[in-house]
């Protein structure tokens, strides 16, 4: 078993799929030389510049060309270098790619993958290069949304995305690129993780911690910390927002009675609110404490180290949240400015 980084996993997944299916082509800016995050190293050498296509700086053209190519029988994988840049092609993604199958009465199929780096993770990329815009996407029916938290999941989920006949947005967390995992990489590997199945990172019975992408690791570390206090948290990695494995979350919360949902993004509106609402609506009777969200502050991401840390959710924040939902009284816990840094 060799070690695989999350960064390498991107190329492993794509190589696996490109070898399997000639219709898979990549397009994006500066990808021919391996991409600015070096996630595509070796693919041009192996598959040629016709299938690993450099583009001009034209996100609308990239996303739109991916869509058109999918309608005409290719299975394109487009790169949006930083997920913040989805804003420059949001019309293609939200208004065209997401809607065209439905609005044509099912005349077309749109096997498009769009992938790229996203999130903060404390790297100092600032307000225009650190958002994880999966929340924008979740507001728009018609887009599958994937955010792998480990190298092996990156291989398996990205492979599944490429095989999916619907549009899938894959958010790679840039602070995870250097994460390593034992993984059997050899030619012919055929690792696929079906979309829509949450992962139980660790089982537990006292509280359910729900994470996605980078926040899974935060949850895990928080769980380890409170474990020493005798509190056993179940940690779930959602893996996908759409399709959403709501059942797995609800099952867990029905057992633990408590949910802490951890999102790196600003909490003003984000997927944690969707999960929080689903939990409140559908596991109400089982709740022994309010579902609580821990999320980023409602400001653009600042750059200086201490500022970025102040704004991002931390392991400490999660531990505090867990202690509070375990505290029997008072039950109305999350007052502005107390638990949730997103409420200044």
């Amino acid at each position, binding site marked *: 078993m060799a070690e695989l980084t999350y960064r390498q996993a991107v190329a492993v997944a794509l190589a696996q799929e490109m070898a399997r299916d000639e219709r898979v082509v990549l397009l994006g800016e500066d990808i021919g030389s391996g991409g600015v995050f070096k996630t595509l190293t070796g693919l041009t050498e192996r598959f040629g510049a016709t299938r690993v296509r450099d583009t001009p700086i034209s996100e609308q053209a990239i996303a*739109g060309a991916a869509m058109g190519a999918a309608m005409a029988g290719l299975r394109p994988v487009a790169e949006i270098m930083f997920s913040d840049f989805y804003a420059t092609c949001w019309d293609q993604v939200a208004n065209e790619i997401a809607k065209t199958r439905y609005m*044509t009465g*099912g005349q077309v199929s749109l096997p498009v993958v769009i992938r790229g780096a996203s999130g903060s993770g404390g790297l100092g990329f600032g307000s225009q290069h650190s958002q994880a815009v999966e929340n924008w996407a979740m507001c728009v029916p018609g887009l599958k949304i994937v955010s792998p938290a480990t190298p092996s999941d990156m291989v398996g989920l990205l492979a599944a995305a490429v095989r999916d006949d619907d549009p899938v947005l894959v958010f790679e967390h840039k602070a995870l690129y250097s994460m390593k995992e034992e993984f059997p990489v050899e030619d012919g590997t055929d690792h696929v993780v079906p979309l829509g199945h949450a992962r139980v990172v660790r089982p537990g019975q006292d509280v359910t911690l729900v994470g996605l992408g980078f926040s899974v690791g935060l949850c895990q570390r928080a769980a380890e910390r409170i474990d020493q206090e005798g509190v056993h948290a179940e940690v779930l990695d959602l893996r996908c927002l759409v399709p959403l494995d709501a059942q797995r979350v609800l099952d867990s919360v029905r057992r633990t009675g408590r949910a802490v949902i951890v999102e790196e993004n600003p909490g003003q509106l984000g997927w944690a609110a969707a999960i929080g609402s689903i939990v409140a609506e559908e596991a109400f009777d089982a709740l022994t404490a309010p579902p609580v969200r821990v999320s980023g502050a409602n400001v653009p991401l600042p750059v200086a180290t201490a500022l970025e840390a102040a704004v991002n959710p931390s392991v400490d924040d999660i531990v505090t949240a867990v202690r509070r939902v375990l505290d029997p009284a008072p039950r109305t816990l999350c007052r502005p400015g107390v638990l949730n840094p997103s409420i200044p």
Partner: protein
Amino acid sequence: MTVGSAVPAAGPARDAAVDVYGELVFVRRFLEKVHALYRQGHVHGPAHVGIGQEAIAVGVARALRPEDRSIGTYRGHAHALARGAPPDAVLRELLGREGGICAGKGGSMHITSVEYGYFGSYAIVGAHLPIACGLALADQLRSAGRVTVCFFGDGTTNIGAFHEAVNLAAVWGLPVVFVCENNGYMEYTPIGDMTPVPRPAADRAGAYGLRPITVDGNDVRAVRDVTGEAVEAARAGQGPAMIEARTYRMTGHSCADPGKYQPPDEVERWAERDPLLVHRAVLVDAGVPAELVDEIDSDTRTEVDELAADILAAAPITGDNALTDMWSDGGARWRN
């Protein structure tokens, strides 16, 4: 190929010219019918017709092979019909009846007929130009010899997606022909007020290393011939082209718009250059009997009237399929 060469007095070329006239008339009557139905309250949601612009859709379609692709805008009824999309299914879509070409989900602005190579009508200005590049990319890689035609309006030349798409097509040498239908107006604003160059598409071609090509958009044969050259060049691997076809929108922007800002004398001048009149004159010059032409006119009117009456007689669709065809599994479940 000579643009607008005379039609011979007999033979297949003459028959083809008569056919073209039949198509022009059919599209015109269809659009007029849509306009009337809209005014009578039978169309749910907005509708945009291209009365006066039919020669472009019909002329371009004549330059294409069945396996070629085309793509257009909310003003796309003519473009779908010209490729062969069934008028019945198109009108059912507009009237919200069973059998609509988009199952009632698309409506007037999103008429699509993949079966006939028309990859859809898009209602966000400029959005479909990048998509056209994608269609062409797929063909460049896997079905060399297929060409995509992308229709858009003069006002569309000012939006970013136009720039990115034409540039990408040029950089990649894609087999795509961009056809600007310059009808002189955005919604209410004359295009001349909002562009710094006189020819919104042709005068921008050079920015992408393309040749400016212009054509009289009310002359169906000229459109066919000019497009034919560009399409065959693209088919041969010579890359994209930019054609600007000058025409005029004889009605308001949408069926709800009386178009009061269109000066009467301007409308009159263009009425004299109506594409049906232009092509009728060609036929008459070629010795086609006026009665034959009149017969086409009246038969078509009857055909379209009957089509509409039949469809109107059917009940509006129910909401049963609201949650189908969202995902590739046929349903709309996003969670368990």
